[in-house]
């Protein structure tokens, strides 16, 4: 390379520094870190309202000791418009820093908006280059404005609090599933499947709303958020709800693997069993030209929570297992029948038929006529610390 060429290369390299790349740099404290987004649409006026909960970094520096004084850990900003885009654009009327959605932890949608249909919101969200779709979507029971303005104790950032609870609920109660993220909802709805997403609501309030009072209050069940129940989504629309008990059965039948606690009738009483799904198999058969879906479920269970009965012998254990197999299979079948009567295909039978028998003339009809057979197999895996239950007279009446 000649000297002149080298000089030209150096000048070019220096000019590169003037290119736009270095102008798109943003300092961290020029960003408003959105942790939770809320969406609402008034069915009458058609006005979209977007809520953004922005982290207040001054209080977030948990490493520096006591969480920050009298400042709120998050601020909720609201903007409205005739479309989500318009609402978003008017945020800068109130928001002093650049909106930064990359770190959002969850998206909430009001029940009325969900019932009208959430397609527009999801489309808008998918169009944003900086929005993440790997975050859970929840439906708000009650006023979304109230939920978005509710602090949570212990975990001071409400979004963290919700996400952390969803994980724990999956691991220990199976009242929340894994596939509740925006992208799962979109994927499943696009495959014409039904989805159940968690519901969040604000708990009763004592009048105070500021974060200091929430954190000073000993009763942590009040003044905060509660995640409970599931919203059934079909074709981007909320069509119904599942209570907590049904939600567990739904998750079991869709192959989620978390632990859960369940009470079963046993010899005129009830026993409490801790169960965990080990395996789930679905098989499609045909009987007299009609589809039969066989669902085989294997569970491990433990008697740690079973204060009512203690199997002493192998024979008793076998009987307990057989009983559980039968009772649980019946419960599951009842649940499936109930939802099918409502026209909900929660087990995604239609999708299964579409996959296994793509040439069916009327898949909807076939799915609704399909027979579902559920088989349950349970196995004892944990016994707790006792060799037998104490049998003094001071038990339950």
């Amino acid at each position, binding site marked *: 390379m000649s000297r002149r060429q080298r000089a030209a290369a150096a000048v070019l390299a220096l000019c590169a520094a003037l290119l736009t790349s270095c102008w798109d740099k943003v300092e*961290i404290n020029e960003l408003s870190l959105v942790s939770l987004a809320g969406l609402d649409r008034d069915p009458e006026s058609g006005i979209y309202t977007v809520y953004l909960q922005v982290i207040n*970094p001054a209080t977030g520096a948990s490493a520096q000791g006591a969480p920050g004084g009298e400042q709120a850990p998050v601020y909720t900003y609201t903007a409205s418009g005739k479309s989500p885009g318009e609402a978003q654009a008017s945020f800068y009327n109130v928001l002093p820093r650049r909106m930064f959605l990359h770190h959002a932890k969850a998206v909430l949608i009001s029940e009325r908006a969900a019932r009208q249909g959430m397609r527009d919101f999801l489309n808008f969200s998918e169009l944003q280059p900086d929005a993440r779709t790997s975050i859970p979507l929840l439906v708000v029971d009650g006023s979304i404005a109230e939920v978005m303005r509710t602090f949570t104790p212990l975990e001071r950032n409400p979004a963290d609090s919700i996400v952390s609870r969803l994980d724990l609920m999956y691991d220990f109660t199976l009242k929340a599933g894994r596939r509740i993220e925006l992208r799962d909802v979109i994927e499943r709805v696009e495959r014409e499947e039904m989805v159940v997403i968690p519901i969040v609501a604000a708990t009763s309030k004592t009048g105070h709303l500021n974060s200091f009072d929430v954190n000073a209050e000993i009763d942590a069940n009040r003044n905060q958020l509660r995640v409970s129940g599931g919203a059934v989504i079909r074709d981007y629309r909320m069509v119904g709800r599942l209570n907590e008990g049904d939600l567990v059965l739904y998750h079991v039948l869709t192959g989620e693997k978390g632990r859960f606690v369940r009470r079963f009738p046993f010899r005129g009483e009830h026993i409490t069993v801790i169960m965990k799904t080990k395996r789930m198999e679905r098989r499609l058969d045909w009987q007299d030209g009609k589809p039969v879906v066989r669902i085989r479920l294997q569970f491990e269970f433990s008697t740690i929570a079973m204060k009512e009965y203690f199997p002493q012998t192998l024979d008793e254990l076998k009987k307990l297992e057989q009983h559980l197999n039968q009772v649980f299979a019946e419960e599951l079948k009842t649940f499936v029948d109930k939802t099918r009567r409502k026209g909900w295909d929660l087990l995604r039978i239609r999708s299964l038929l579409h996959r296994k028998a793509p040439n069916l003339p009327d898949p909807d009809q076939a799915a609704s006529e399909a027979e579902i057979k559920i088989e349950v197999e349970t196995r004892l895996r944990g016994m707790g610390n006792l060799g037998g239950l104490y049998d003094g007279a001071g038990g339950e009446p």
Partner: protein
Amino acid sequence: MGRRTKGRSIGSDLAGDIQTMLGSPPDLVCRSLIPDGDRIVQCIYLDSLVDKRTIDEFIVSSVQQNTFAEGPAASGNQYIQELPFTAPYETLRQQVLQAVITGKCVLIDAVRERLWLIDTYNAPGRQVDEPRTEPTIRGPYEGFTENIRINIGLIRKRIANPSLRFEQMTIGSQSGSTVMMVYMENLAPETLVREVRSRLAAIRTDSVLESSYVEEYIEDRILTPFPTLLNTERPDKTAAHLLEGKVAVMVNGTPFVLIAPLTFHELFNSAEDYYQRADIATFIRWIRLISFFAAVFAPSLFVAATTFHQELIPTELLISLSAQREGVPLPAFLEVLLMEIVFEIIREAGLRMPRAVGQALSIVGAIVLGQAAVEAGLISAAVVIVVAVTGITNFVVPVYSFGMSQRLLRFTFILLAGFMGLFGVLCGALFLLAHLVSLKSFGVPYLTPLAPANKDDWRDVLIRAPRPSMKPNLLPASIRRLKRK
């Protein structure tokens, strides 16, 4: 009387001429010894450069007792050399002058017409001491000194092998420095020895005061931040490299010995690796590798992530960083650049400062620049941590000159990150890789044995395999490569 040349006589005029030519220095000694009545033997030497005990106990006494007798000296004998008395006066005078200034004692017996140069060199200097730049916990504590004779001894002590070769040459038209090329004749590739010899012979300079003078003349490429010659002040390390067939270059007056060829991975090897257990040595080697990446890339990645790619930072950390930056006036890029420059200034000041003041400097550095600057809101705490991490990791590398190259690279990457974010860092890293691949040290690709790959040698690159599982008598890939040529 002695033979006359151009009217000057060796016996009567040489001593006076030498004195004049040296400008009558205070340390020039001309003694007249009288072994018997009719003979006077002149003894000339520089008092400051010779071993006076040898002169007094051996030379002076044996001459005076008339027992000094030397047969015709074998050619190449460095210790006692006899010059032919019949040679032209000018030539003799020049040789004698050269001998005197290199610490030899000159004996002139005008009656018997004999002239001897006896090596009595013993310049003042440090004794063998612990190597300052490469200390180890386990392993020998000896380091090279400024005296090349002692250094030769330190190598001989470790390699008792007749194949060990020392080739001496004098470089520097003014300084006339002694430069020594050392290699194992049976192991070092002939091409390498020839190449080093010819590169040394091609040096045209007035002085060589340190081995870096030689290094800049003989290295393959000057425009590179990476050293292509290893320098060390450890005799054990030098011996190990000689036994791998490499060539060492020693310069009188400096404890730093150059070793060629050098490959990149050797910059991460310390002498101690071979004195520790293999698993520990491997672990420490990985620590050094990680430290290298941290030292070069940590500040640039910090700048890139905090100003261009905030989505890459975990949320909790981002919130914490954001909290720290509240109220900081400078952009992260300038903040990091400024702190790095300040750190370099402190480091340089620490090197030059007298030891007694050094402690004050470290207090000023630690408290004022660390704590006070953060508390005053001038810089964020995270930047102090990043700069401290890069500072510390920079000292992990066992070769000091490589540490210096890391400092240069770090600044380049900070600039790239400040302008172009991760894209800039990636471009820089690719350029760096291309540069490393294109480098050669005495004909050996710098990244040997990784690229070109040589699996046999991998047992001593990213890991240090236990000795029994290494191939015995296997020369490194770099040397095998040269031997094939």
